[in-house]
């Protein structure tokens, strides 16, 4: 034994290995980590990677549609592009980015050292990553023995009977099903973890009424994920049974129903939109108060509005189905319930405005993105109210007006808040400040690009341009609008490039940020930047909603007034 040890020892410390070790150790650390901050960053990195891929897919589609009678890509490829673009942006960009922020900041904000289940956290991340890999492997493996195309081309909501074995031969649709099924398991694991963390891991004194709104909103979002992703999982299991075991769930020839797939998909699909936008609200609810130098206006109402959005959103799904012909009662119900969601959402907008009102507003980059969000989300909400009226929807359902509406929500609303969050927390995560000038270029270019693309996208919709068309004839009055829409993409891409350069450059050369560059109030700014592995050397105890304000202003603490 001792002989073997003496033989082995020199090998371990040999110089060649010492050189090689740090890099592989780092990689190894990241792969086996159960630390919520590392997993959060991996989620965000994963989301950004697929954001680029999904963005490239969108760009190719816009090149194809820029001019009439274009044949830049084949119709088959075009179908694959819009399917992969939609699926990617919802499942591989939106969810991972938002889970990433929740993972990183929920434990920090509630004064915990990690999530409730660190190993489950790692498992969930790797399941999500595997799901994305499976979906994109379809480009290589999707054609199967039939040579029937590679990537899925059934649209992101994969309506039956297009997904039946007869109409979707090969394996591309199976990759779509299984990829989402697997990443769905990851989503449920992470959601379960966030709910448990927010409920069980709070530091002493952090009552539910003192929890930062960021944590509250992510709690609601995660609770929604639990009951919202599952219907999709169930529907996908049914689809697999249909495709592989000869089942008849969605087979109209044997008494099955194609419409029931629509119901099952949208029972998932519409609440999913709120799952995506509620974390956006969470970012805004942290950033606007800090840069308005005022506590959030109407904290309790904000929580109540979020809960009612979560509740109401479970009963609005069939507004995606007005055009399939439902009974007038169903039309009336889903019109009314959809409009009702507008009420708590409107309350939120007024709360953010109320927070800014009379505040000492600092126009930093995160704040500028938040203000952009407020305007754009309002417009997105208004077109949403228009589309919720079923007679209006019969005219414009499945047109570019709808495409413009939901891109206004998801880019004008969600992506703007994600950028706000990325700028706001970058100093905490890296310990360095970004460059203000580059940030302004990013904001303005992206803003101009966004409005060029998505403001003008409403018009061809009203003029009758249906969504998902491969190309169109000249002389319908759509050409100029489509060209403007496509030109806007260029501005967006240049804006994003400014962001990439800014963040990469600042990572190495940025000014040190210090622990609390924004003079903020929540617990994540109480620890160092970047936070140590254990987050807090001593678990903090809080007495109000703004623990750092109490610390900085012992003469006038918040807890006296709450």
């Amino acid at each position, binding site marked *: 034994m001792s002989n073997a040890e003496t033989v082995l020892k020199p090998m371990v410390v040999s110089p060649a290995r010492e050189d090689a070790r740090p890099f592989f150790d780092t990689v190894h650390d990241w792969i086996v980590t159960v630390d919520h901050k590392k997993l959060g960053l991996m989620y965000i990195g994963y989301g950004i990677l697929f954001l680029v891929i999904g963005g490239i897919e969108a760009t190719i589609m816009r090149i194809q549609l820029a001019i009439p009678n274009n044949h830049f890509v084949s119709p088959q490829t075009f179908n694959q592009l819009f399917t992969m673009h939609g699926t990617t942006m919802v499942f591989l960009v939106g969810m991972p980015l938002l889970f990433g922020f929740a993972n990183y900041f929920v434990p920090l904000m509630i004064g915990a050292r990690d999530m*409730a*289940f660190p190993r*489950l956290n790692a498992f969930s991340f790797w399941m999500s990553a595997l799901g994305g890999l499976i979906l994109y492997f379809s480009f290589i493996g999707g054609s199967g023995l039939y040579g029937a195309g590679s990537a899925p081309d059934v649209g992101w909501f994969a309506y039956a009977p297009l997904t039946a074995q007869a109409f979707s031969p090969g394996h591309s649709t199976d990759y779509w099903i299984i990829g989402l099924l697997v990443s769905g398991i990851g989503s*449920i694991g992470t*959601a*379960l*973890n966030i*709910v*448990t*963390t927010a*409920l*069980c*891991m*709070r530091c*002493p*004194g*952090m*009552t*539910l009424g003192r929890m930062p709104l960021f944590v509250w909103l992510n709690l609601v979002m995660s*609770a929604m994920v*639990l*009951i*919202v*992703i*599952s*219907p999709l*999982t*169930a*529907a996908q*299991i*049914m689809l697999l*049974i*249909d495709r592989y*075991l*000869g*089942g*008849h*769930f969605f087979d109209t020839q*044997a*008494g*099955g*129903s194609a419409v*029931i797939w629509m119901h*099952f998909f949208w*029972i998932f699909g519409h609440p999913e939109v709120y799952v995506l936008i509620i974390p956006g609200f969470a970012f805004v609810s942290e950033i606007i108060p800090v840069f308005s130098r005022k506590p959030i206006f109407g904290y309790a109402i904000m929580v109540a509005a979020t809960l009612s959005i979560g509740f109401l959103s479970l009963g609005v799904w069939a507004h995606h189905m007005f055009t399939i012909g439902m009974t007038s009662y169903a039309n009336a119900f889903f019109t009314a319930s959809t409009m009702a969601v507008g009420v708590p959402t409107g309350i939120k907008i007024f709360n953010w405005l109320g927070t800014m009102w009379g505040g000492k507003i600092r126009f930093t980059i995160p704040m500028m993105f938040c203000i952009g969000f407020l305007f754009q989300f309002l417009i997105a909400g208004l077109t949403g109210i228009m589309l919720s009226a079923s007679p209006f929807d019969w005219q414009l359902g499945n047109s570019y007006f709808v495409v413009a509406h939901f891109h206004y929500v998801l880019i004008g609303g969600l992506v703007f808040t994600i950028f706000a969050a990325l700028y706001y927390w970058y100093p905490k995560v890296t310990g360095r400040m970004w460059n203000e000038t580059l940030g302004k270029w990013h904001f303005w270019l992206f803003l101009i690009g966004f409005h060029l693309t998505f403001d003008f996208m409403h018009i061809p919709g009203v003029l009758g341009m249906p969504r998902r068309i491969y190309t169109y004839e000249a002389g319908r009055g759509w050409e100029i609008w489509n060209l403007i829409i496509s030109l806007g993409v260029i501005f967006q891409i240049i804006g994003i490039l400014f962001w990439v350069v800014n963040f990469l450059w600042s990572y190495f050369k940025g000014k040190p940020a210090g622990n609390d560059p924004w003079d903020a109030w929540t617990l994540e700014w109480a620890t160092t930047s970047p936070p140590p592995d254990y987050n807090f050397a001593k678990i903090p*105890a*809080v*007495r109000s909603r703004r623990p750092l304000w109490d610390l900085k202003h012992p003469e006038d603490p918040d807890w006296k007034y709450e």
Partner: protein
Amino acid sequence: MAVASVTLNQPEMPLAHELRGRVGMWCLIAAESAIFSIFVVAYLYYAGKSLNGPTPREVLHVPIFNSVCLFSSSFTIVMAERVIAQGKTRLFGIWWLFTIALGTIFILGTAREWYHLIYDEGLTISSSLFGTTFYSLVGLHAFHVIVGLTGLSIIMIFTALGLVKLEHAPRIEVFAMYWHFVDAVWVVVLTVVYFVAR
């Protein structure tokens, strides 16, 4: 007044960390319930819409013995939870073994029922819409029973090795929640499949 000052000096402690296993399991149960709801809705929606036979009335018999076994396993697992909380590991092993036995009887009963339906009645998952919805709903439940049995057996192996002790009682409780959930789902599936939608 005195009470108020005490609460300020000793900040209120939120839900104990020890509860996180239960909260997590409740979340999982919520997600699983949503999956089952969709399958139950599909079953009810498609009831009687099959274009060809056999019909449920012709071929389904209420699995009374099976159901009694599964429901009793909830009782035996409660007894197991109770004795492990008192540190009686040997007794725990016995109750645990009973639970596994009852669960296994249920699965074997389902297997026998399916064998009969497939080979004697000609009802398969692809033969009719009824077959599709029946086998997927009952099969989804059976799958959960099998997952539960796997978990029960792993804990049984640990028990046999003498590794399960008093301090594991909370974890046993969390696992038992899952088993109770599987039983509760059977109440719904049994009612829907064998009584409501015949």
